[in-house]
């Protein structure tokens, strides 16, 4: 291989960067009712996914335009699964502005869902 930095082709650099960034993030897993919920950058930004605990294809839980908070910049949790209520509390971000003014769950009262 090349002995100096200048010998490295820009195209190879770009490929290496894209190779390194091809590894997606898998963070903050929560297990509930044999389902594994987690935060991932599978779609290019941080969002919420779930899959069967035994493994399988991750299923997106949020519309593609909605991103979660940056876990490096906030205290606490990005989401919390509430199986008894049949709901998930998620903390939403908007292009990094940190205006976390609308934690999402459900408007008003929640009721406990019947558990299998």
């Amino acid at each position: 291989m090349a002995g100096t930095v200048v010998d490295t082709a820009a195209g190879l650099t770009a490929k290496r960067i894209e190779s390194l960034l091809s590894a997606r993030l898998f963070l903050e897993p929560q297990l509930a009712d044999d389902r594994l919920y987690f935060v991932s950058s599978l779609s290019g930004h941080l969002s919420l996914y779930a899959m069967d605990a035994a493994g399988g294809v991750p299923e997106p839980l949020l519309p593609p335009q909605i991103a979660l908070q940056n876990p490096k910049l906030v205290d606490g949790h990005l989401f919390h699964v509430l199986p008894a209520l049949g709901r998930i509390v998620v903390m939403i971000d908007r292009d990094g502005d940190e205006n976390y003014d609308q934690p999402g769950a459900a408007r008003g009262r929640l009721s406990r869902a019947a558990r299998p």
Partner: protein
Amino acid sequence: MPLEGGFPEPLVPETFQGRRSHLLDVDLEAAMAYFSVESREDPIRFGVRVDLESGTVETLGQSPYGAYPAAWSPDHSRVVLADLYTRGDVVLYEPDGEGGRRMLFGTPIEEREQSAEYPLSGIPLDVPSSHGTRSGKGVVLITSLFADTGAPGYLDLERPGEIEPVSVDGLAHDGAGELERLQHLEDDRYAVVYNMDGCSWAYETRFDEASRLLKVERVLVGEGELAGGVLHGLHFDEASGRYAVAFCTATDPTQLYLLEPDGKRAARRTRERVLGLAPGLLSSGEDVSFESHDGLRVSARLYLPSPELGYEGARPLVYYVHGGPQSQERPDFAWFSMPLIQILTLEGFAVFVPNARGSSGYGLDYVKRVDRDWGGLDRLDHVHAMTEVLPKDERVDVSHAGVVGRSYGGYMTLMLASRHPELWRAAVDMFGPYDLITFSERIPETWKPYFALALGDPERDRDFIVERSPRTAITDISCPLLVIQGQNDPRVVEQESRDLVEGLRGLGKDVDYLVFEDEGHDVLKLPNRVRCYERIVGFFSEHLA
């Protein structure tokens, strides 16, 4: 939103609208959620509890310094709130139900005398680590009162002012590091998480409240496949007795694992990998900790190109400074720095990554050394490394060196490039404060009380803050500079970087400016990250060759 996903709807919007909120913890059984909520207009924070079943909202307390819900009794009849003045300087109190408070530990700042010294509790608040015990009588927590690097403690709610030591029996690790987190699992069981020079160790323990003992029953993280890296989530599912874990190392991306109740081995649920690059081409780094200018040990790692890449001779150097300043660079593939470090080594650079004084992970005394000394002795740690340590390593060419950092690391990059210009051929500032006076004026209102204590008061300490601002010596910068900024950053706002760029361009200096319109205090979106890394690597390749 429902478990199967969908459009999230606002949760009690009358409470959260127009404020900035953090979900601190949830009691699943009681469906009770605790939030820290910040005003946008005033320097005030609120501790808020939401009953997720009834929709009832309760403001537990408010304070310029937090009113963070720190712990609660199992029936939620008692709640412990915390105020944080500076790192480790945390007091605990209980709302009295009439708008007042009953102090549980520490002296409130407004009652302190100027000349007196007050012991630092060292209670961490960034991750929930204080928990009401099953009996409802006390709180088990982490404190620095018994060990500078943190140890478990016990606060009897009927004996305020006294925290007792809690011993831990059965730890498997050794070396230097910190007790990082105490996580409640169920009943009297807790996960205890250590950060040993950047690497995570986690244990399952059982708490004997009467004898003040946490007894280790299982090593969860730190051995086997889950060794030598960083934990990114540990969740215990009471129903199945299983753990869900996220973990990565310097060279292996984050993976998800399940730990069975009695399983010896972690069952991996993902096979994430770097595509098209053999693992042997990545650099795991080596420990190059050094004794600094005043004899203090500074932890550091050096990442060199893999021998398989065939580079010969001393490598040009990229010096990476982490943000915070009270954080730590760890063997962590998950975030911005490690992919950058790896691509730089692939391109033939050596990358030096110190955890200078003021970094977290090495005890309270170490992390406090940057309070009211921004750009002081920690800057000299970096200068010492560049002038006394790295020149002795023949694998590194310090005559071809560049410096890069994010946030506080960007600030330090500007300080090093302007006050020690002879050391650098290129510098990359990512959203670093340029003028600490304007920075102090531009940060969110709720941050101002903290920064007035930890950095300095922009009025009372004006001369000191001006002296420690990169702006004061910026005319001395001589190397090319790349400035990177997110347009939506509320912490170091775009105007701060624009002031720097326009000021330097007005002086005829060589400055590139890269703004991401849809990013904040980070570069997260994939196309932006690709562009960001390309610009940084290209910039160093152009100027350090």
